[in-house]
């Protein structure tokens, strides 16, 4: 980063901070308001399920591939979920080529836990031959444009892809007909940041860069928490966490009903 870049960044941070003090955000949103969301499904023909998610300036594509494979030894009668997310250098000047780093790995694992721990997929229905062959569900998140809050966009894309994905039983001669992925819940992840003591949902790129900490709360249809992840070096108080949990569950419901009706 050149010196002028650094100066720009500092000015930008001050600007956002000063807005916050006045109760405002750079794009005019309320603190608990999400940017515009667009979800298009079945955008990749080669994938068994796919979704293109635009969340403000953030753009990503999620592709779900499903194929037979061996179960894990400790769950011989359950399908397998494998989630990958790469922060490829096409999507941001700060992303680098090479194997995923800790940020990408954390994002992938939180998306994965959101799907897995909510029991969104009935994995027992993805067993083909117990102990030998099960369906493996690969969720690949391809970030194309980092405009902030990749986390929530990725989680939205994952669940939207799964809701429309087909298990390709025919192609693998494992059944007469392709079936839907056996879904039984629709978890939604909501991410908040703390900027100078103020909690904001769905951080933009600039907000994310000045926030010391993010908290992601994934909740399910009945309003229970399936997964949480604090990320970043600033501590949070019990009160802040409680507050975020409350609005996250409400906001998840709102988004679920608006975008993820099956």
């Amino acid at each position, binding site marked *: 980063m*050149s010196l002028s870049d650094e100066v720009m960044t500092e000015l930008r941070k001050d600007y956002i901070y000063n807005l916050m003090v006045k109760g405002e955000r750079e794009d005019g949103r309320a603190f608990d308001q999400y940017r515009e969301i*667009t979800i*298009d499904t079945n*955008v*990749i*023909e*080669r*994938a068994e399920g*796919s979704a*293109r998610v*635009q969340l403000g*300036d953030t*753009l990503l*594509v999620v*592709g*779900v*591939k499903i*194929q037979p494979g061996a179960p894990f030894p400790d769950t011989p009668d359950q399908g397998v979920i494998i989630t*990958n997310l*790469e922060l*490829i*250098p*096409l*999507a*941001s*000047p700060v992303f*680098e*080529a090479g*194997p995923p780093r800790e940020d990408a790995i954390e994002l992938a694992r939180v998306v994965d836990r959101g799907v897995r721990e909510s029991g969104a997929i009935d994995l027992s229905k993805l067993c083909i031959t117990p102990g030998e062959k099960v369906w493996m569900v*690969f969720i*690949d998140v*391809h970030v*194309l*444009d*980092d*405009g902030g809050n990749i986390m929530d966009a990725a989680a939205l894309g994952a669940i939207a892809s799964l809701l429309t994905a087909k298990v390709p039983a025919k192609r693998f001669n494992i059944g007469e007909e392709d079936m839907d992925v056996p879904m039984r819940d629709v978890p939604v992840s909501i991410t908040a940041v703390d900027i100078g003591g103020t909690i904001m949902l769905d951080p933009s790129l600039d907000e994310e860069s000045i926030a010391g900490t993010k908290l992601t709360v994934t909740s399910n249809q009945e309003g229970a928490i399936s997964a949480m992840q604090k990320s970043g070096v600033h501590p949070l108080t019990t009160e802040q966490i409680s507050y975020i949990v409350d609005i996250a569950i409400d906001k998840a419901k709102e988004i679920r009903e608006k975008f993820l009706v099956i």
Partner: protein
Amino acid sequence: MNRPEKLIEGDIRLDGRRPDELRPIKIKVGALNRADGSCYLELGGNKVMAAVYGPREVHPRHMAKSTSAVVRYRYSMASFSVEERKRPGPDRRSIEVSKVSREALEPVIFEEYFPRSAIDIFVEVLQADAGTRTAGINAASIALADAGIPMKSLVSSCAVGKVDDTLVLDLNKDEDNYGQADMPVAMTPDGNITLLQMDGHLTRDEFREALEMAKGACTTIYELQRAALVEKYSSQMEGGDVIE
């Protein structure tokens, strides 16, 4: 799918095209916010996104050149872009495609304007249907222009192949799998060849004819590339969605 009995019947190919017909091309210039330049391009069933960053600092430093920019090209296929899931990360094929694609574009870039700098080109294949490298070069060429990189001209790219003993333009997946030859070409508007690969079986005469067909197709593609750029920069339209 098994090999169809005929790939071309009465001058009409399986997908309804004539031998010298390209697949439909869709171009969106400036599809991304973060990149300095970008282009989303569909060529038949291919969906590719190209992004350009630069001129910018070179990391790692020792790769910098003292008298010109270093141009880098990373061609990559999404794991869900093909029928059988592809393992993430570069493989030998993508490393070779990246090399020849970079060499297809370098001749038109004024690299000497930007010593000690990097110009990074990234091409992501989101959906593959034969012809991803040519689609990628076409998109990357536009993304370079969109990024404001000084260029002598655009580069346009297209493959010619042979199926059922007939030369055809722009092979689709089945034609690629079951055809007799595939020859990707890239060129400048004044006819300089910047990429040429071939595999399969072509006689000398077939080769000459194929090269002429490629030239014609590249001219067509060049016009589409130019039009897309003109449209973007004249009207500053608010374009449709990417990956529809």
